[in-house]
Each structure stands twice: as structure tokens, then as C-alpha cells.
């Protein structure tokens, strides 16, 4: 393969790193990494979960300090000391995890630390702040009131606020760590339009994503990392299969989609007439044993709300839930788990992981009762054993079973959350964005896992904003728009086009369709 | 119309104050007047006491009984009372003002001096002693501490006060007593300036299994009387709290009737020990 890093044109990189190393307790996150970013390029950074991408970027953004090695800005060595320092060097970053102040408005979040003032600088000029923000949103084609508290926004819209915030700075280096993980296609298109514009203005952009198609659409060069080290830097038109091989150290096979006939199977989960305010409006659906039902829709369509309501995490105004044909009253997640359900939340940091606890405690949390002696004492050996099995089965990258979950990389955290429901061994599994932030290798493992789980006779609901994912997994696809189910498509007939059409079928356009 | 006399005291949780209340209630019954009794939770809360006084005045009382936590802080309110023709009877601790018609109180300086004399007598006029006082700032705490210290200084040059510590509750006083005997192996006596201080001293000495330490206490209460009976505490000074309460209400009633009263009603204090506890005169001023 051709290596670009040594032969590129003789422009001075905006930013370059040489022999950069960084260790955390028990983990060598970066090992003599090299990387460079030129003005006016989009440089994709790729690698498996835990490869060290975010760590590298956090060093450039002043969040972490490097252990050794050199960072150069315009060819001059720099020591980036703090986020404020990075900002002053015109380095901006969109972090992988959301870092927003929930109680503050979108405008207040975006301009924190740079508020326009009035009255000789004594008072804040809130009107000016909102005008500036509105202008920014207009530029980004983002329909959002600047005065909305961000705590009231969905994850996707919060992500948009983060992006808007990074773009509100005059930056020369812009780092985007999985900016599209929560976005839908339209928004991704909008983001790419902005990226291209910035690129033409000479901004250098580091782009991290696990979505292969995006890399091909937007990147100029690709640097691949594995296990904390740089593997190589290649042009973006390098065949993806080859890039993936560099990432995971082997070639991946693509599983063919096979849709089993489940029409005669027992209905495991059925929801009838679920309603809550305007978020969920008369939603009915059913899932059979062995079936994978995909939920597609645009951001805010109400899929997460349906999942949470079915699982008892939020109350319903109306509607009934049947499990194995039996009417069940589900008033809390506890009821749901007792009825044999498991729910993987789309927001692992807040709802999925006990971040301060270790890996094995997380994995055995829902099923803890099974690991007790005399109904009271923890059976350590059994807990170790089952956790170890899961770590191996899902290839969770962790120094030990007693590593604190917070210290794992994002993707590995997600695997831990999946593991806990696998251990619980439920019949009905609801996965909300199960591969959010997960690398290609792990993604295909998770797909295989879901298919296996279905084949073993479980009923599976997959909510995903990535249409290819929905298409690849679902035996049947339900599409939601504005809290209603707007259509149902058999897996064999589903295409990006017909799903998108249903996903945008707003109430005004047609009468509610319920064709299932 | 009913005669109403609220007593705003310095506290209500100690047995001492409960005894004052008992005396006041008794007088209320005898003179057919309505009496209420309240005080802040700790003897530091000067401002809360003033709020209580102010609420008491809002109830348009016929007279007020007042035991001041601070001798000056309440004066503006007392002026108001005077302007509204509400007579004020001070009790336990006086006010630096001529507004109160009279003050029913113990002379704490003198009482503590008596404690010093008794302690000196029991240890033979020489050696190391210590004080467990109830707190640093309350009038009675300060007077008793200083009354004791002054008397020792003035009359007993061979007695050395090695430490003054402040107890607060019984448990803390007991811990202090234990460390006192650790730190001062030659310690011969302890003066506990109020009920928790005295009982705590007794407890601490008992737990430390030290013999030969003379404790002089203050106030009364069942535990203290028991300790005097079993010899843990040599003897104590008691005031006449029931008398203080009674005299306060009585003075109020008399004032309302237009009678003249002396500026101080000295309710007295007494030294008591195993030998005289059952004397009628003494047992009348002791309480459980």
C-alpha cells in the first residue's frame, strides 16, 4: 500500500505529532503516535474501539497532557495546557461525549465564556446572545430556538448544538470526534456541506467516525490507528476493505441476510394503542419469537419514547402490553424485566452504565439475584466466570474485570451494556441504537449476535437511525414519524427510499396510516 | 380579662430550666394567671431569643418574664415593652438596664466561690484542680468559671488550676474528665459548673477508675444526686430554680397589683452533700 505520510507535498502541516505517548493506569492508550493535519484537508482518523483516537484528540484539545513526544503547530513545538489554551491556538473540538449544561439554553451553552456584554461590560446582553445564536443556526440550517434549555432536547439535537458551538469559533484546526453518531441522513448532509465550506476556507479538519460510507464521502486522507499506535496514513480512495483490514488486522466477511419465516411463531411482545401526550400516539405493534423488528424514523420520531414506555421507564397515558399473549401491567423497568424484557438505552452514559462500578458489577447488575448464595451473599466465583465469558464473547477490551467502566473506551462501554442483557437472558430484547459509537469489527460481531439471539428464539426490537443497519438486520421494519407508526415494510422489500418516504409522512400530508 | 405572663428563658431542655418552669407553673396556678415558658435550643442563640421575646410581646401579655442570654442585646425590645406598659421581670440572668422591675436570680459569682472553698477544703488547700465549664460565653458559665478561678487565686495560693475545658453535653464532659486525669496524674479535684459538667466529670472519673479525685458539682438532677450518694461527687451547689420560677411569676403578679418590689430577689444557693441532702430546707430546692 502507498504510504502518504512520508511523501506528501512540502506544505507545513497545521498540526503534527511525533512519537506521542500517553498511559492511563493499566492502559497504554497511545504508543509513539505520529499524525499530521494539513490546511484545507479533511483527515479521517479511524480505528477500532479503544484504539486511542479520542485520547489523541483530547491531547490536541488540551484536555489531557501528553506523557512524551512532540506536538507542533505550524511547525513550532507547542505544549497545549488547557482547553482554554487550545482555543486560543484556534483548535476547536466536538467531543465524542456530549458536554452540555442541561439547565442553560442552547445560546448560553454555545457562547459560554464569550457572552456579549452591555452596560460597560457589567451585564450580559442576552438579546444580542440570542441574535448571534440565531444567525449561527441559520447559517447551519438548524431549526431550533436559541432559548431552549438543552436539557429538553433529544440527544441528536444536543449533538447539533455541540456542532454549532464548535463552529461558532474561528478555528484553524477543527476536530470532530464521531459527530454524526446521533444524526440522521439529512443532518449529516448538512454537516458535510459545512465541512466542505470550512475546508475551502483552509481549515484543517480531523474527522473521526465508524461509518465507512462517510469517510469515502468526505475525507481526503485516512490515518488508521490500532492498539494505540499509528498503522499508516493513506488516501481516502483506498479501498475500504483494505482500510478495515488495517484497522482490525484481518479481512471481514459480510454475512448474507437471511429472513427466516416466523409468521407461525408465538407473538412474544405486543403493544396496543400506546399513547403518551404528543410523543407517542396510538402506537401498536407486535414481535414474534425469532423475529428482528427494526424501528426506523427521523430523530425525534418517538422511537426511544416507545421503547422506554414499553419497558416501564416512562409512564403511559393509555395502551396495553401483552407478553406471550398475557396482558401485563408494566409500571416500572422491574416489571418489564420480570416479564422477560431487556432494554439497551441509546444514552449509555446516563442510562446504561453504572460508570463508577467495575466491569463485572455492571455485567451482572440486572441478573444479580442469580449470583447470590442463600439469597444474600455474592457468589464471586460465578460472577467472575460469567463476566469473563462475556468479555471474551464480545471481545470487550479491558485490563481486567475489575476495571472501572468509566475508563473504557466508548465502544467497549457499549459492549458492557449489551453484555448485561445477554447475561440476564431475556426473551424480549429492545436495542436502542445498539451500535452507536461501535467500530466496524465490533459492529459486525453485534449484528451476528443479534441474528443468533433471534435464531435462538428471542424477539428482538432494533431501533436505529442508520438505515443500512435497519436494512441489514430487520425481518420487518416499522417506520415512525411524529409519534405515530406511519408504515410497515417487510425486510425483503425495504429500501432506503421507501423507508425515508414513510419517515417523513407527516400528519398534515396524509391521514394516519396504520397498515399492520 | 385573663392575665397572661410569658416567660422567655435561656433554654428549656436542661433539668434546671424544667425546674424553673415547674415553679412558674405552680405560681401560675396559685395566682390564677396563664403562664407559658420557652427558650432557645442553645444558650448561644441570642437573636433567636429576641425573636421569641418579640413574638411574646405580639401576644399582648400582661407582664413578661425574661432571662437574658446577653445583658444588653434585648434592651431595644425591652424599651418597647416599657412604652407599651408591659412590666418586665428578669430572672436567672439580669439585664444592664433599669427597665426590669426586679431580677430573681442566683449570685453565681458567689456560688462558684463557695464551690471553690468546698473543693479547697476537701483537698487540703493545695494541689492541682481543673474546671469543666458548660460553655465559653453564657453569663452563668462565665460567672461560675470566673467566680471559682478568682476565689482560688485570692485565697488558695497553693492550689493550681491546670486546665479549664468546656463540656457542653454529658458525654463530651465525661471524655474531657478522662483526658484530664490522663494529662494530669496529680489532679486532685474538678469543678463541674452545671449539671452535664458535674455528671460528666463523675462518669469520666468512674470510667477511668480513678479514686481520690474530689468533684464539686453544680445544680441538681437525679443522676447528680445519685453520684453524691455513692460518693463519686463530693458535693454540689444548688440554686433554687423552682423558687426562681415561682418568684418571677409572683413578682409579675405583684407588680400588676401595684406593689413595690426590691431590685433583686436573691433566690439563694446552697451547698449540699450526702450529709444534708435530706434536710427539708435542702430537699426543697433539689429536683430530679
Amino acid at each position, binding site marked *: 500500500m502507498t504510504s502518504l505520510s512520508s511523501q506528501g507535498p512540502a506544505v507545513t502541516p497545521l498540526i503534527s505529532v511525533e512519537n506521542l505517548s500517553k498511559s492511563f493506569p493499566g492502559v497504554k492508550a497511545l504508543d509513539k503516535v505520529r499524525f499530521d493535519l494539513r490546511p484545507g484537508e479533511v483527515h479521517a482518523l479511524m480505528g477500532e474501539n479503544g484504539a486511542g483516537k479520542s485520547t489523541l484528540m483530547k491531547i490536541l484539545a488540551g484536555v489531557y497532557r501528553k506523557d512524551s513526544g512532540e506536538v507542533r503547530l505550524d511547525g513550532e513545538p507547542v505544549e497545549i495546557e488547557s482547553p482554554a489554551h487550545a482555543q486560543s491556538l484556534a483548535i476547536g473540538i466536538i467531543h465524542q461525549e456530549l458536554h452540555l449544561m442541561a439547565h442553560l439554553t442552547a445560546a448560553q451553552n454555545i457562547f459560554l465564556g464569550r457572552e456579549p456584554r452591555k452596560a460597560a461590560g457589567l451585564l450580559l446582553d442576552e438579546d444580542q446572545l440570542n441574535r448571534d445564536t440565531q444567525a449561527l443556526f441559520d447559517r447551519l440550517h438548524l431549526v431550533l430556538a436559541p432559548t431552549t434549555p438543552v436539557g429538553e432536547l433529544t440527544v441528536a439535537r444536543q449533538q447539533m448544538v455541540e456542532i454549532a458551538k464548535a463552529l461558532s469559533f474561528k478555528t484553524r484546526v477543527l476536530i470532530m470526534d464521531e459527530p454524526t453518531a446521533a444524526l440522521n441522513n439529512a443532518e449529516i448532509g448538512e454537516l458535510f456541506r459545512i465541512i466542505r465550506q470550512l475546508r475551502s476556507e483552509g481549515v484543517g479538519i480531523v474527522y473521526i467516525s465508524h461509518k465507512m460510507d462517510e469517510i469515502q464521502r468526505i475525507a481526503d486522507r485516512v490515518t488508521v490507528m490500532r492498539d494505540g499506535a499509528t498503522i499508516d496514513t493513506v488516501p481516502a480512495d483506498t479501498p475500504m476493505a483494505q482500510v478495515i483490514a488495517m484497522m482490525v488486522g484481518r479481512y471481514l466477511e459480510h454475512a448474507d441476510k437471511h429472513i427466516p419465516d416466523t409468521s407461525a411463531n408465538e407473538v412474544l411482545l405486543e403493544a396496543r394503542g400506546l399513547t403518551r401526550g404528543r410523543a407517542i400516539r396510538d402506537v401498536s405493534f407486535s414481535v414474534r419469537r425469532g423475529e428482528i423488528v427494526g424501528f426506523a424514523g427521523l430523530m425525534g420520531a418517538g422511537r426511544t419514547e416507545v421503547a422506554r414506555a414499553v419497558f416501564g421507564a416512562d409512564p403511559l397515558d393509555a395502551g396495553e402490553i401483552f407478553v406471550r399473549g398475557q396482558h401485563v401491567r408494566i409500571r416500572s423497568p422491574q416489571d418489564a424485566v420480570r416479564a422477560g424484557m431487556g432494554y439497551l438505552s441509546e444514552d449509555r452514559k446516563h442510562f446504561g452504565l453504572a460508570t463508577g462500578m467495575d466491569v463485572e458489577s455492571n455485567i451482572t447488575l440486572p441478573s444479580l439475584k442469580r449470583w447470590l448464595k442463600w439469597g444474600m451473599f455474592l457468589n464471586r466465583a460465578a460472577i467472575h466466570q460469567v463476566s469473563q465469558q462475556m468479555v471474551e464473547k464480545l471481545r470487550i477490551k479491558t485490563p481486567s474485570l475489575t476495571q472501572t467502566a468509566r475508563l473504557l473506551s466508548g465502544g467497549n462501554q457499549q459492549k458492557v451494556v449489551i453484555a448485561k442483557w445477554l447475561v440476564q437472558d431475556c426473551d424480549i430484547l429492545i436495542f436502542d441504537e445498539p451500535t452507536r459509537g461501535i467500530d466496524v469489527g465490533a459492529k459486525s460481531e453485534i449484528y451476528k449476535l443479534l441474528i443468533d439471539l433471534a435464531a435462538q428464539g428471542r424477539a428482538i426490537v432494533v431501533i436505529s437511525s442508520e438505515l443500512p443497519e435497519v436494512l441489514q438486520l430487520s425481518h420487518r421494519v416499522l417506520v415512525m414519524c411524529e409519534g405515530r407508526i406511519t408504515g410497515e415494510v417487510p425486510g425483503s422489500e425495504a429500501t432506503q427510499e421507501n423507508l425515508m418516504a414513510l419517515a417523513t409522512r407527516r400528519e398534515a400530508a396524509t391521514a394516519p396510516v396504520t397498515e399492520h | 380579662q385573663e392575665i397572661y405572663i410569658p416567660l422567655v428563658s435561656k433554654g428549656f431542655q436542661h433539668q434546671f430550666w424544667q425546674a424553673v418552669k415547674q415553679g412558674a407553673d405552680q405560681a401560675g396556678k396559685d395566682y390564677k394567671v396563664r403562664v407559658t415558658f420557652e427558650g432557645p435550643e442553645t444558650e448561644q442563640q441570642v*437573636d433567636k431569643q429576641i425573636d421569641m421575646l418579640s*413574638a411574646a410581646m405580639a401576644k399582648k401579655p400582661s407582664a413578661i418574664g425574661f432571662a437574658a442570654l446577653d445583658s444588653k442585646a434585648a434592651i431595644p425590645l425591652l424599651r418597647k415593652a416599657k412604652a407599651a406598659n408591659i412590666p418586665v421581670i428578669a430572672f436567672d440572668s439580669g439585664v444592664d438596664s433599669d427597665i426590669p422591675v426586679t431580677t430573681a436570680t442566683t449570685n453565681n459569682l458567689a456560688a462558684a466561690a463557695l464551690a471553690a472553698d468546698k473543693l479547697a477544703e476537701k483537698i487540703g488547700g493545695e494541689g492541682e484542680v481543673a474546671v469543666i465549664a458548660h460553655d465559653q460565653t453564657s453569663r452563668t458559665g462565665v460567672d461560675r468559671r470566673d467566680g471559682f478561678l478568682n476565689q482560688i487565686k485570692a485565697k488558695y495560693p497553693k492550689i493550681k488550676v491546670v486546665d479549664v475545658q468546656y463540656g457542653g453535653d454529658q458525654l463530651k464532659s465525661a471524655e474531657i474528665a478522662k483526658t484530664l486525669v490522663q494529662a494530669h496524674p496529680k489532679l486532685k479535684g474538678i469543678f463541674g459548673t452545671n449539671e452535664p459538667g458535674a455528671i460528666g466529670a463523675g462518669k469520666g472519673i468512674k470510667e477511668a477508675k480513678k479514686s481520690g479525685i474530689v468533684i464539686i458539682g453544680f445544680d441538681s438532677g437525679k443522676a447528680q444526686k445519685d453520684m453524691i450518694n455513692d460518693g463519686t461527687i463530693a458535693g454540689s451547689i444548688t440554686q433554687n430554680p423552682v423558687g426562681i420560677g415561682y418568684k418571677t411569676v409572683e413578682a409579675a403578679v405583684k407588680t400588676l397589683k401595684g406593689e413595690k418590689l426590691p431590685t433583686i430577689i436573691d433566690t439563694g444557693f446552697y451547698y449540699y452533700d450526702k450529709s444534708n441532702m435530706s434536710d427539708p430546707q435542702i430537699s426543697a430546692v433539689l429536683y430530679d
Partner: protein
Amino acid sequence: MTPPAKSSWLSRLASAQAKQKLLAFASLIALIVVFSVLKPEAFMTQDNFIGILQSTTVIGVLAIASTFVIITSGIDLSVGVLMTFCAVMAGVFIVNLGLPLPLGIVLALAMGALSGCVSGLVITKLKVPPFIATLGMMMLLKGLSLLITQTRPIYFSDVEGFDQIALGSLIGEVFPSLPIPNGVLIMFVVAVVCAVVLNKTALGRYTFALGSNEEAVRLSGVNVDRWKVIVYTFAGTICGIAGLLIASRLNSAQPALGQGYELDAIAAVVIGGTSLSGGVGTILGTLIGAFIMSVLINGLRIMSVAQEWQMVLTGLIIILAVYTDNLRRNKK
């Protein structure tokens, strides 16, 4: 996707937050009505109302100081003792050293600022959690107050006009029928100034931001430590004002007073709708909370309820007040 809502003055008034405040106010009114009905002749008098206002001043001002700290999701257990320390220092400057009154006042407030600043530094630089940092400060300042005064009160009797700070009545001079003491006036002025600071200045903005997500603030390039120190310094200064108020009211600095007041202040703040987990709070709410507490206690005293029962009822009402506040919030 919802269109950007234009927030008019009217819709803002009807907003959930405003409604909540109105309802908290309603609880206060309810309490007043109950006591007025039960004991009109004593409760409903002008004197008693002024007494209630007066008795709210110190806790009210302390609660305002605490509001800032609590919105950052911190806590300040030292406020009561810090108030005393400032009163003591006022005594040292004005009485012992004989400095002119205005200078003494400024210096006393500066001591409050300094102590707050020390708390802030301990929290940010030594990374000691606020609960412990301010618990330590509480003990330290209490000891210092007793040491400095040699455990004796300092009297301001000879300082011309000192007691007028809290007890005089500028309003009464203009409207003789409305003898509202200056202390009350000062509390309201402090409240207005603090409300402006909280809602219209950078300090206020960062106060909310810190309580909402400190890491996000840091990643925004804001100097988190500095602003936190400023918040505690500001709160310390406000405690200094409380110190002057209580010193003036008692015409003396009482060195042993103050401990325990922090709990009343925190209770007032939380009853007023400020969340202990940070990010949410208003000064108006805090004032209402402080009044709920003082009306309750005054009313129970006026009704001659036994003190033991007063404690039991206060405990219950604190829980209930916060509970109904939750109810409202969840209904929004």
C-alpha cells in the same frame, strides 16, 4: 421538529418556572391565612408583621448567600459561623481599633470575602469537597471568633448609630405609619442586587453553568476554578452583610452564635425551589422559602404551641414544602 418558540413577556409569565414561584408564594400566603384565622388579634398586627420581617433578615441574607453556592451544586456549612466571624471582626475594627464606622464596615465585609475566598481555594486547589471544606472552615472560624474575642461579646453601645443599621427605619422617617426597620430594607436590597447578579451578569451565568455541568464549563475554556472561588467569595461577602445586621440588631458581636444557622439557610433555599444538585434556583424563591420558615415559627409561637411540637411541626413542614414543590415541578 418544533418551530422556535417566541418567548413573549406573557408566555414567560405563564411559564412553568414562573408558575412554580407563584405557587410557592401561595404556600406562604396559605400559612399566613391559617395563622391569621387561628389567632387574628396577635398574628395579624402590624407589629407582628414587622417582627416577622425583622426575624427573617439574618436567615434571609444567609440563604441568599447560600443560593449562589447551592446553584453551583456546592454547599456552604460555614455561613452561620462566617456571619459571626464578620460581626466579631466589625467589633475588632470599630470598637477595639476605633476605626471610623464606614471603614470598619468595609473591612468586616472584606473579611467575609476573604473567608469565602479561602473556602473557594480549598475546594478548587486542594480539591476538598465543599461539604468538608466548609465544615472545616466552620470549625476554624468558630475557634477564631472565640479566640479573637477571648470568648466575650464585643459591645457596640458606644458606637454612634451602629444599632441604626438594622434597627433604625429610614422608611419610618418618611412614612411614620410604616416603621419598617432598615435591616429589612437591607435584606430586600441585597435580594434585588443578587437577583441581578444571578440573572444578568457573567458571575450568575457561570454560577448556573458550574452547577449544571462543570466539566462542560471547563471544556468551554472557562477558568472553572477562578469562577468557583469568585462565587464563594461573593457568598462570603453576603454573609458579612448578615454579620453586620446581626451585630447591629444585638448591638454586639456574640462570638459563640451562628452554628446551626446554615441548616436553616439551606432549608430556606431548598424550600424556595433551588435544587441541591445544582443548576436551578432563584433569589425570589429563596426569599419566599425564608419567609415560609419564619412565618411558621412565629405563628407557632404566637399560638403558644409547645416547643417540642414546634420542632416536630417544623420538621414535617420542611419535608412537605419540598414535596409539594416537587409535585408542582413534575406537573409542569
